[in-house]
């Protein structure tokens, strides 16, 4: 048998074995087999290095070897193989696929230059409801939730890195090194995959200089907290997020992610971790989510009927006193209401609603209202 065919067949058998090992959850074995496949396919392709070698065999083999090189994170070698493939006379479609691969190499190198790794674990967010069809969703419903999901992920990163809650300013230190990537939307009813990029592992001996958490830890933590939130298991959620500011922040963002009950009836999060699936479906509309009162004074205020529900425009904000930020709401009759915003809510929950017509719920404390929940008011 021709040497090219022999080597190529061997490489493909190894790649098939790698695919099977991956499906069975044997990642280490899959990686070893993939590397052997890559090395064997490079040998097969290099036997046709002469640019006048028969096509499409030549370009298909170089494209195949380059794909395997990318899978093995051999980016420089992948680049060379793509160039070799293009240097012959590839058919138009194979040439196009070689260029696509080159873009893929560039993307991986961009991550490498930034010192980050895009892990395979991902969090899929899907929305379903009357206004959502297969593969299409209202931009507002999607974009808002994607932004909230982004906040949820980065607050979780900072919490897991044991940073004190940050009410303003940018994240600091290692927390800044994490990123979020969104992949092509999927039709189910409408879903996007969110992938967290993390800093590359510190070199041996430098572990202390960079606190490090895997994206899998971030995804596990978010899923675990969302599960407690979804069951209204307030105590369980408090045990997971003991710090008040982070707790309020999580609850506020999770409520924003919840369905509105009309346009969107379900928001589901599916975590894919090493091929294993874990799912949380938020089906209770935002307005029906009730968690137990946060403080004793709040409980007493509720008993005494001092509960406040005001609808109006959010027009004034005073963030000079950290932890006791204030906002002012002008109701439909033109009356101003001062609202104290507890730590954890101003930046992520209140600020995006600036100048909007909002509904505020809370309880009276002296002459001001202590904020418990704030959301966009429905248009009458």
């Amino acid at each position, binding site marked *: *048998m*021709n040497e*090219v*065919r022999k080597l*190529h*067949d061997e490489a*493909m*058998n190894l*790649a*098939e*074995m790698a*695919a*099977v090992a991956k*499906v*069975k*959850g044997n990642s280490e074995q899959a990686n070893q087999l993939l590397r052997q*496949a890559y090395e064997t*396919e490079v040998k097969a392709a290099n036997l046709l290095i002469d640019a006048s070698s*028969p096509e*499409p*065999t030549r370009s*298909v*083999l170089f*494209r*195949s*070897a380059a*794909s*395997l090189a*990318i*899978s093995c994170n051999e980016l420089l070698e992948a680049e060379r193989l793509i160039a070799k493939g293009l240097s012959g006379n590839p*058919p*138009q*479609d194979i040439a*196009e*696929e070689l260029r*696509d*691969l080159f873009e*893929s190499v560039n993307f991986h190198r961009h991550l490498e230059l930034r010192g980050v790794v895009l892990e395979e674990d991902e969090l899929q967010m899907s929305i379903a409801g009357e206004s959502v069809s*297969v*593969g299409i969703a209202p931009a507002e419903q999607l974009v808002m939730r994607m932004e909230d999901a982004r906040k949820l992920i980065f607050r979780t990163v900072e919490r897991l890195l044991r940073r004190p809650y940050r009410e303003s300013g940018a994240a600091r230190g290692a927390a800044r090194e994490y990123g979020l990537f969104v992949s092509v939307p*999927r*039709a*189910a009813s409408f879903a996007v995959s969110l992938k967290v990029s993390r800093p590359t592992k510190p070199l041996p001996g430098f572990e202390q200089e960079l606190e490090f958490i895997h994206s899998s830890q971030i995804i596990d933590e978010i899923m675990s907290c969302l599960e407690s939130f979804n069951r209204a298991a307030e105590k369980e959620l408090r045990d997971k997020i003991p710090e008040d500011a982070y707790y309020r922040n999580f609850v506020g963002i999770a409520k924003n992610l919840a369905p509105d009950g009309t346009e969107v009836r379900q928001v589901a999060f599916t975590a*894919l971790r090493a*091929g*294993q*699936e874990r799912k949380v479906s938020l089906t209770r509309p935002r307005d029906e989510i009730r968690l137990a009162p946060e403080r004793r004074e709040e409980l007493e205020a509720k008993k005494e009927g001092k509960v406040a529900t005001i609808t109006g425009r959010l027009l004034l904000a005073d963030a000079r006193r950290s932890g006791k930020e204030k906002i002012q709401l002008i109701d439909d009759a033109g009356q101003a209401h001062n609202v104290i915003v507890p730590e954890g809510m101003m930046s992520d929950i209140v600020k995006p609603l600036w100048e909007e017509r909002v509904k505020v719920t809370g309880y009276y404390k002296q002459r001001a209202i202590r904020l418990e929940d704030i959301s966009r008011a429905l248009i009458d």
Partner: protein
Amino acid sequence: MNSGKHGTLVLTNLSEGLPGITPTYGEMLAEAGAVCFDDQKHKNGVELQVQGTFKTKYQVFWQPVTDKMLRCYNDEERATELGAYGVALLLILDLTNYTVIETSQKGTGIDFWLGKAEDNKELPFQNAARLEVTGIRSGDDNLVKSRLNKKLKQTKRSDGTLLPALVVVVEFSAPLSHVVRNERSS
């Protein structure tokens, strides 16, 4: 073309291997296909409609789905893709005179090529036709048409180089399959 056939597709035959596909890989395709049909609550022997260049129907048979299989193939998108590969390969071998399958790697997965026994045995991919497969776990006609058009557009790039191409869309809920030969290049 209307073959008027009403044959059978036995997914477990894939685990005997195909020309160009190892038995281990074939077994994985068969298992993924079984998970997809089972997930759509179909009974063994369900009728699969084939539309497009070939109009016929098949009875499909698969092995019992185990808990282990469900755990292995719980990534719906991946399992659907693998299941569709399995169904498409069996269909092509039965509906066309292609007998050999070659594979290569491409950025988004496996690239299948179809050949004939009498073709050049020295070098792979010579005189071969490309096979584009896409799987849908559950979708309506519009989604099937949209996937088919997308794949046909991709293979049209082959026209200039005279690489023939076959496009197969497998939809598991109906279930149905669209098999279309890229006419200009065949």
